[in-house]
């Protein structure tokens, strides 16, 4: 009986250690998977934001050229509208990664301000002659582009902020 009780104690002790090791391994494994996912998510956000900032730069250049020209450029109009739509949908898809946070809402509003700055006035049928380089149109486009990039960069940096 004493021997049997001793064996059971050994078995329980061994079993306890085994369970502890398995549970520990599961926890560590889960944490490791989460860390990998967070890293991949952050990488995607960084690449997306960098790519969106490039798109805004190209839009800014296209818009400046379009509004400076005396002649209406219909190809440029279509390309800019497509680019703004692309920008808007790509910013919207960032929400899946970042969640609905204030910086995201700011970015969404920036897209609206940029579309308005480029396509509200002196656009399509209202394009009559070249806009003055010091006109409000260029100022609004520059401000909207800068604000959009600034908020996107804030969104990117937020992923690495000290908690």
């Amino acid at each position, binding site marked *: 009986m004493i021997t049997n009780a001793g064996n059971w104690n050994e078995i329980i002790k061994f079993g306890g250690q085994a369970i502890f090791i398995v549970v520990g391994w599961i926890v560590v494994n889960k944490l490791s998977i989460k860390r990998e996912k967070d890293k991949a998510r952050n990488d995607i956000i960084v690449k997306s934001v960098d790519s969106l900032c490039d798109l805004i730069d190209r839009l800014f250049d296209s818009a400046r050229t379009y509004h400076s020209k005396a002649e209406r450029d219909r190809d440029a*109009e*279509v390309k800019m*509208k*497509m680019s*703004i*739509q692309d920008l*808007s*949908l790509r*910013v*919207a898809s960032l929400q899946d990664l970042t969640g609905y946070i204030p910086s995201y809402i700011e970015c*969404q*509003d920036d*897209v*609206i301000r940029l*579309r*308005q700055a480029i*396509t*509200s*006035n002196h*656009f*399509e*049928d*209202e394009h009559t002659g070249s806009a003055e380089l010091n006109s409000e149109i260029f100022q609004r486009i520059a401000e909207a582009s800068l604000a959009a990039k600034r908020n996107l960069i804030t969104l990117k940096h937020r992923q690495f902020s000290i908690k």
Partner: protein
Amino acid sequence: MYIVNVAKDFTRYPAGRFKKNGDTSGEAFRESFLLPALRKGEDVTVQLDGTIGYGSSFLEEAFGGIVRELNISADDVLAKLTIDSKDSSLVKEVHQYIKDAGLRRHQ
């Protein structure tokens, strides 16, 4: 309920503000599709997806123009009109134009 899909029923290339400058303008869309249905008192849903994109001048004239043409409040327009798009910035912008036109109506 009257449902209009801009790309299928109007054009995939909406452009411009005024009808005198083009059949695909915001004013042409408003007069051909939105005003007739709203004057009949119908609820209207506008599906924006499927086009190559929108300029703000088109959106402002098409939707802000409803308030100006019918001379009704922004709330009344918003109660009868639903804007449907996977691009939420477009929906927000259209709502903004309707509200702005409503505010200017009182000035």
